[in-house]
């Protein structure tokens, strides 16, 4: 019979398991960088004993593009095509944070209407990203149909983005001073139509996924993050809220128009992969409600852009700031330093996956069955591009 009590076996020396690969008890396998069960381009070096993982090391570096270095060599405006490419599912958070940091350091005040449009943009992008995550979560447990439903509905949101910004995935819509264009005519009706469709599919997914015996059996008890781990590992977003902690950047330190909207902390208690899915489900319904509130309050007239100095010669006084927003994965931050020249001195991007996919995942994965590794990774909503900027 296999000994599954990992408290004594493998033996630990200075907190590290003593693993002798020559003993034949262990096997080292790589999951990724090209693997359907890995989120994006990263690799997990797993040491397994039978079906169970006894040790894991995250390897990144497969898509490092040197964005932070490139940004130091380009003028402020030239960095917009770069920042959005840091995150495919949710590029708008990057655009917003970079734009708002420049506005703060450059002393630009954004008009009211632009703030509302930006909030709409950010929330739509959150909804789209959540739909992608739920698809991934279901796919990781073998339910590909749910993936197709949710990705289709994310595509309807991308249609809205295409209409609003001209681009489906990368928008470059939020610029210092406001947004590039006002909302198209009759946009509200089309947003409402997409929200209705999304609500319908979410209730279908809820029935198919959350009540599914296989999903329940595999996700319940998987990857439990205890409340004391949250600060120790720097856990944020739905992963922290599923552990019962009330933490949401939109409520704690409101930005744009979030302070004028009705939203609440969505928390869980059990803090396993199932609970995190539940929290994300409720987050999606809340996002839909927020988008409806925004559309009701959206000013119809007024400037959506304020003139900035000539962007090709714009020199921003020396300073530094840290701006953050609530992305689907949690606190997303931009640390921007200027030195009085026409280029940023330093831009550092803080993505939640930096800790979720490395320090946290490496410890949570121990004792998890190898078949559940993709499900665990997806439940943490890890995204390698924000680790490698």
């Amino acid at each position, binding site marked *: 019979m296999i000994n599954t009590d990992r408290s004594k076996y493998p033996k630990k020396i200075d907190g590290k398991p003593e693993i002798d690969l020559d003993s034949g008890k262990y096997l080292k396998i790589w999951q990724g960088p090209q693997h359907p069960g890995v989120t994006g381009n990263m690799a997990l070096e797993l040491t397994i004993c039978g079906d169970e993982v006894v040790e894991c090391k995250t390897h990144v570096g497969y898509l490092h593009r040197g964005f*932070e270095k490139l940004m130091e060599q380009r003028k402020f405006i030239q960095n917009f095509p770069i920042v959005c490419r840091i995150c495919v599912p949710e590029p708008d958070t990057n655009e917003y944070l970079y734009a708002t940091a420049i506005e703060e350091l450059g002393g630009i005040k954004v008009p009211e209407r632009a703030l509302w449009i930006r909030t709409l943009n950010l929330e739509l992008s959150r909804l789209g990203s959540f739909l992608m995550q739920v698809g991934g979560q279901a796919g990781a447990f073998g339910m590909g149909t749910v993936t197709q439903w949710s990705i289709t509905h994310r595509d309807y949101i991308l249609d809205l983005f295409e209409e609003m910004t001209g681009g489906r995935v990368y928008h470059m819509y939020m610029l210092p001073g406001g947004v590039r264009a006002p909302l198209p005519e009759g946009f509200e009706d089309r947003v409402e139509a997409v929200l209705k469709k999304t609500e319908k599919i979410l209730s279908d997914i809820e029935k198919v996924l959350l009540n599914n015996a296989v999903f329940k059996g595999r996700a319940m008890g998987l990857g439990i993050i205890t409340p004391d781990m949250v600060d120790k590992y720097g856990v944020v977003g739905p992963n922290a809220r599923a552990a019962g902690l009330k933490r949401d950047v939109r409520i*704690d*330190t409101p930005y744009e128009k979030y302070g004028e909207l009705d939203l609440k902390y969505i928390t869980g208690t059990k803090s396993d992969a199932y609970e995190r899915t539940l929290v994300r489900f409720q987050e999606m319904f809340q996002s839909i409600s927020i988008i409806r509130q925004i559309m009701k309050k959206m000013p119809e007239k007024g400037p959506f852009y304020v003139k900035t100095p000539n962007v090709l010669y714009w020199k921003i006084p020396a300073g530094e700031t*840290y701006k953050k927003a609530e992305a689907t994965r949690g606190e997303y931050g931009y*640390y921007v330093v200027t030195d009085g020249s026409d280029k940023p001195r*330093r831009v550092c991007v803080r993505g939640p996956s930096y800790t979720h996919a*490395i320090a946290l995942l490496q410890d949570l994965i121990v004792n998890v069955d190898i078949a559940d590794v993709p499900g665990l990774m997806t439940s943490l909503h890890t995204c390698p591009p924000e680790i490698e900027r």
Partner: protein
Amino acid sequence: MKTLIDELKKKYELKKFTQQNEFTCFVTVSKKHAVPFITHLRDVENFTHLSLVTAVDRIEEDLFQITYILHNYQLKMDLGVRVFINRNEPVMESIHHLWKQAATYQRELKEMFGIDFPGSPGVDESLFLEGWDNIPPMRRDFDTRKYVSETYFPRKGRKTHDPATYMRNKLYPTENSQ
């Protein structure tokens, strides 16, 4: 926040305090007092969340600026702790014992800026750049263009064009031939 910093000013010899916005402040602390100050912030003042550890190359002053961004969930405030270290002796005390994720940030700073954090787990292992044999790339004196032209060019069959001339030739071929 100003009151808190004023209280701790003497004990940790704090310098330049900046209230950047409603939710963000920055303060400078010496290298010697940095880790005790950060530990105090975490254990006593409830700055329990470490958002970011990063560095800025102040090459003109021969300094590296290390910035730790901490967050207090009760006050709902971010505090950026700035530490300036000598660029020619880039060594800083590690904080991996305070937060688990700090080890990864420190590993990145070692690779990208060459700042060492003795004792930090895996600090000497490469994080992104396997087999890198040049100066740390995020330093200001690392020339990306030079590196690229030396490492990747000339590549067989690859041509580069001046965009303006290329477009002019494409759009107005007859004018250019005259």
